[in-house]
């Protein structure tokens, strides 16, 4: 067994002239929840598909469960589970028919199929009759079933590509509970998401932009590193903040001012924090807040586009 679940070195994937993934390097430890965060088209899906053996690297190398692409990626495919961002179950087949087709693809014996579906339906808490057509299931249940089909062969590494897009908030919470349960059992989960609250639950986050890895760390470290200086939140409470904002922007102790909903987030030098805090006009509130992942995302990913 290799120490790392996934090891990626200078991985590059091109489609014609377009470079979707550009010299990506990282390693994922066993039992980790590893998140990919980035805008649409940042290369998250391409990276995941390559690691599942659905795409071939143009340059660089990747070892997944210690395996590469020498045999067309078949050995690798046997060790990982993949849940695409597209719904990959058959709408016009029943729950059972879908599971038994997934088992057939992996050449599982009928006994293994019976045992695993029993376990997995209990794991995802499936209550719908097993002869229900999948098209009649609710969105969240469909996603849980797709997860069950993806881990039917009990893979050690699981790749989830936006598993909760278009699913209700309650179903999202349920789904993440399942993900945590899996890693507690020693599975490695690599997941892409658009939701910041989901990214918070990852052990480490890889931030991607235009195919490149621009940051990789735990959520706490990312916040710490991106915002070493204090972050303040200005709430104008219905007043016009423009004059004050202009004063702030001219203040050499202020590093950055970003609109944040109806409020503003202000980054200041530690030495100027007190002075800035006390300069707030009457009727507005300015207070120190811990940075959120969204602040990090805005600063690192979107910030560079401006």
């Amino acid at each position, binding site marked *: 067994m290799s120490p790392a679940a996934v090891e990626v070195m200078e991985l590059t*994937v091109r*489609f014609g002239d377009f470079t979707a993934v550009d010299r990506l390097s990282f390693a994922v430890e066993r039992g980790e929840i590893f998140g990919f965060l980035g805008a649409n088209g940042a290369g998250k899906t391409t990276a995941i*598909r390559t690691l*599942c*053996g*659905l*795409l*071939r690297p143009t340059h660089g190398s990747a070892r997944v469960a210690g395996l590469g692409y020498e045999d*067309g990626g*078949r*050995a*690798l*495919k*046997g060790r990982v589970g*993949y849940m*695409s961002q*597209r*719904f*990959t*179950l*058959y*709408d*016009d*087949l029943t729950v059972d*028919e879908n599971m*038994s*087709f*997934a*088992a*057939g*693809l*992996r*050449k*599982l*014996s009928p006994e293994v199929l019976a045992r695993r579906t029993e376990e997995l339906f209990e794991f995802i808490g499936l209550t719908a009759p097993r002869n229900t057509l999948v098209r009649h299931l609710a969105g969240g249940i469909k996603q849980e079933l797709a997860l069950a*089909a993806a881990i039917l062969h009990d893979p050690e590494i699981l790749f989830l590509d936006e598993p909760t897009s278009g699913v209700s908030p309650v179903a999202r919470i349920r789904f993440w509970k399942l993900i945590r349960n899996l890693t507690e059992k020693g599975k490695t989960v690599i997941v892409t998401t658009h939701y910041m609250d989901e990214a918070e639950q990852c052990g480490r986050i890889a931030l991607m932009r235009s195919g490149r890895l621009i940051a990789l760390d735990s959520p706490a470290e990312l916040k710490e590193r991106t915002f070493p200086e204090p972050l303040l939140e200005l709430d104008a409470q219905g007043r016009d903040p423009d004059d004050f904002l202009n004063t702030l922007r001219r203040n050499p102790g202020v590093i950055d001012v970003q609109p944040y909903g109806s409020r503003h987030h202000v980054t200041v030098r530690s030495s100027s924090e007190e002075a800035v805090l006390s300069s707030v006009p009457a009727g507005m509130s300015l207070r120190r807040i811990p940075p959120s992942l969204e602040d990090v995302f805005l600063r690192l990913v979107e910030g560079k586009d401006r």
Partner: protein
Amino acid sequence: MNRTLNAFIKKELAQTLRDPRMRVILFVLPMVQMTLFGFAISTEIKRLKLAVFHDPGDRAARQLTERFYSADWFLRVEPEGDDPLRLVRSGRADAALVIPAEGLTRSLARREATVQLILDASNATKARVAESYVSKILATARRGPEPPGPFQLDVRVLYNPTMESSVFLVPGVMSMILCLVTIILTSMSMSKEKERGTFEMIISAPLENWEILLGKTVPFVLIGMLDTVLILLAGTLLFDVPVRGELWKLLLAAFVFVVTTVTIGILISTISKNQQQSMLGSFLFVFPATLMSGIMFPVENMPKTIIVVAYLNPLKYFVTLLRNILLKGGDPWVLWSNIGVLLLMAVATTALSFRRFHQTLN
């Protein structure tokens, strides 16, 4: 391997038989097509509208006219005025026969009788048939009571003695339907997987290319054979098409043909990006294949350059096989040579689709 193939067979059968659109294609379409070709469409042309222009006092002309209308071939149209052209132009008659003004009785006596036939050839088939009927009737009329000449033709019609066109057409239609159904089903099913994203689940499993191709082929060969049996039953029970050859010859020929068309369907799906393109691709193949198969028009009459293309058409070989087995009892040379050609084609299309098929998404 058995497990994967099994899973594909179960899955495709469930999906195909559950889908109302597919049920229509599989079961209703064949019946409608066969009914159309078996009952409604017929290459025999009967009840042509004919007007005969003659002097009412002309006895020979009257007798000749009676001969025309005594068979089922011509319908009587009363000549109006004295302009046969107008009658044909207006469409009230398909043909007009004009007896010489001096009268048939007199010109026959001079042994110089020339009658004029005016034909509406805007439908060339109809015109040709009308002409041949008229000349046949005139020939028998001329012989009349006189002793027969030195030659006499004794015609024996084999395999389809009443020369019914349905006996000839229905086997053609059977092969056409089988071709259409198997190609559409196979190519659409493959592109549906790609369109819906379910293809990603298949290629994320550790399978060899041939395992996936076999999985997407074998179920449709089975479905095609099911349809074969259905079409054969309908053809023989509803349209009185005889089955003179052994059943195994029929099933073997159908099997080899279905394998060929299913692999063509796979090939079409490797070229198309979605279901619409697959559907269009299937029709682009099936239409010319039908026209150049000999189902309606004999291949031998086509220009040389086109014949080359016609000989690449699997449908041509299957139509030959089906007619030979059903109507003539299945001559061994016809059977094995045509099956051999179909097998070669199946191997070629399989090799081509194998080369075009990729498990990766790049």
